[in-house]
């Protein structure tokens, strides 16, 4: 559709028909005091001058030149060149959500392939077309569980779930009649199963939302937890870094009912926190309560393979206030980046990438543990991040690292006040042996 503005002649003609002199007269009912004066804007800069200005401003950002060991939900991974090269194709980059969906076969196909890739990774039966991010995926999973267990009113959430995800869950559930109970972690940073079990006995539990690897990078022992939940008729909701599925048990093997997370580790740059893409997968029997949309494969009237939006009738634009959720959209472009990265690595590549992340983090963790006056938060299995405890104020350590151009990790006291002087350190495949050695050297000097 072209946009052609009205000519002066047309404007005059229209004004004549309605019997006024100027467009401003249309707004004469608005008191002068409420009208905004036309802002004074100078001539601005030329293209060249503008670029220079932006370059100089960008130079003030020192952060990108630092070595970052920050994780906690957003991970620095190498983005294969094929990802931006495919995502920047204008058919994908500039297209809006397909309203006349079936006319956009290419878009539907990439969503279908994305869903298939996430199902393969998690082992789950169905995946939706994607959600905003890991946090909203957790919140939608909770709402979905509440719809599935309408006769119960208590939701258990692990305290080792990413605290930022938890904030979003709280916001989503604020106006719902649901009782949220925190399940603490024990001294090893793992789910306190005795507390969990005692709440399960009430019989009023909708489900349990946990994260593994949890916020501390610790891999939870989920099999017995899953069994206990099933015994008590409660649903198991699990948030996971999808890369961890490369080497750890799939959600299917753990008998998870709804598996969610953020696919950022596959193909998406840190980009100051977004846009990312949330995945939501579940068992087939729960598909009717899944939020958002699903792309399905079918055949057209001539028997040719084609793709359609399925289960769309439950969405907000059709069901209004009775919609399954108010999510009528998905993160198609970010989901495409995830898909391309997963396909590029392939089955074996994903496993190797996960293993490299695991090993590099272990290398740093083990060497840190040899340094006197530093202790590890736990001796459990961790995946690409872990927690280090210091007996000196963390601020001093942070500043020695920063002097050397390193962001050594996330201070946990901000999220868990009782975890003082604890640092969450993330190591991905992007860190070299030299970088890790330098980290150790600075840490030794700082103590």
């Amino acid at each position, binding site marked *: 559709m072209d946009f052609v503005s009205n000519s002066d002649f047309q404007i005059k003609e229209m004004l004549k028909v309605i019997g006024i002199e100027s467009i401003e007269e249309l707004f004469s009912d608005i008191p002068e005091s409420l009208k905004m004066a036309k802002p004074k804007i100078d001539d601005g800069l030329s293209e060249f001058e503008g670029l220079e200005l932006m370059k100089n401003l960008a130079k003030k950002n020192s952060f990108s030149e630092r070595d970052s060991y920050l994780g906690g939900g957003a991970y620095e991974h190498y983005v294969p060149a094929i990802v931006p090269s495919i995502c920047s194709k204008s058919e994908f980059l500039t297209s809006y959500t397909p309203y006349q969906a079936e006319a956009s076969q290419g878009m539907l196909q990439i969503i279908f392939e994305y869903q298939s890739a996430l199902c393969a990774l998690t082992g789950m039966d169905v995946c939706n077309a994607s959600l905003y991010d890991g946090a909203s995926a957790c919140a939608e999973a909770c709402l979905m569980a509440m719809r599935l267990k309408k006769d119960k009113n208590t939701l258990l959430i692990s305290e080792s779930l990413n605290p930022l995800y938890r904030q979003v869950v709280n916001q989503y559930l604020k106006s719902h009649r649901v009782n949220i109970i925190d399940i603490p972690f024990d001294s090893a940073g793992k789910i306190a199963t005795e507390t969990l079990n005692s709440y399960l006995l009430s019989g009023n539990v909708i489900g349990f939302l946990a994260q593994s690897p949890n916020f501390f990078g610790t891999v939870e022992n989920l099999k017995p937890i899953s069994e206990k939940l099933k015994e008590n008729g409660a649903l198991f909701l699990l948030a996971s870094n999808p890369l961890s599925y490369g080497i750890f048990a799939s959600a299917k093997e753990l008998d998870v009912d709804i598996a969610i997370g953020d696919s950022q580790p596959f193909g998406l740059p840190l980009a100051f926190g977004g846009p990312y893409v949330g995945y939501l997968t579940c068992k087939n029997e729960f598909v*009717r309560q899944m939020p958002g949309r699903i792309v399905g494969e079918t055949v057209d009237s001539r028997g040719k393979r084609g793709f359609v939006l399925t289960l769309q*009738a*439950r969405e907000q634009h*059709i*069901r209004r206030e*009775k919609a399954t959720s108010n999510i009528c959209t998905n993160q198609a472009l970010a989901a495409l980046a995830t898909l391309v990265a997963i396909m590029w690595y392939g089955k074996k590549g994903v496993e190797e990438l996960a293993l490299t992340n695991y090993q590099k983090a272990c290398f740093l963790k083990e060497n840190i543990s040899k340094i006197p006056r530093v202790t590890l938060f736990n001796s459990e299995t961790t995946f690409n991040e872990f927690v280090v405890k210091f007996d000196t104020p963390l601020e001093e350590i942070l500043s020695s690292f920063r002097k050397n151009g390193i962001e050594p990790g996330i201070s946990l006291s901000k999220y868990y006040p009782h975890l003082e002087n604890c640092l969450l350190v993330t190591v991905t495949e992007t860190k070299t042996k030299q970088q890790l050695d330098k980290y150790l050297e600075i840490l030794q000097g700082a103590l």
Partner: protein
Amino acid sequence: MKFTETHEWIKIQNDNIAVVGVSNHAQEELGEIVYVELPQIGKNVQAGKESAVLESTKAAADVYAPVSGKIISINQELSSSPELVNASPEDKGWLYTIELSNLKELDKLMDKDAYLSSLK
């Protein structure tokens, strides 16, 4: 058999137990039905309030309870064959049976002739 303005039908089976479904006109308007969400057995419903949902390929429509009462049974066949609502809306495609709490509510409903002429 009695009908509502919102295209449900109700038929007394015995005493105060009745069968409920949607009219032929309703299924024609909805088109191919792909999923039927039925109420839980034992649930109390109120006349005029949502009691079930019919999903067709392009829309989802609420089915309102023609009378108040308690859900006694549901048509289990619809979970695997929702198309029964299209093929036999006023017989095999029934939705649920209900125990009426107030038989007088039936008097407010239309008979078949009145319902059919209301559609014209």
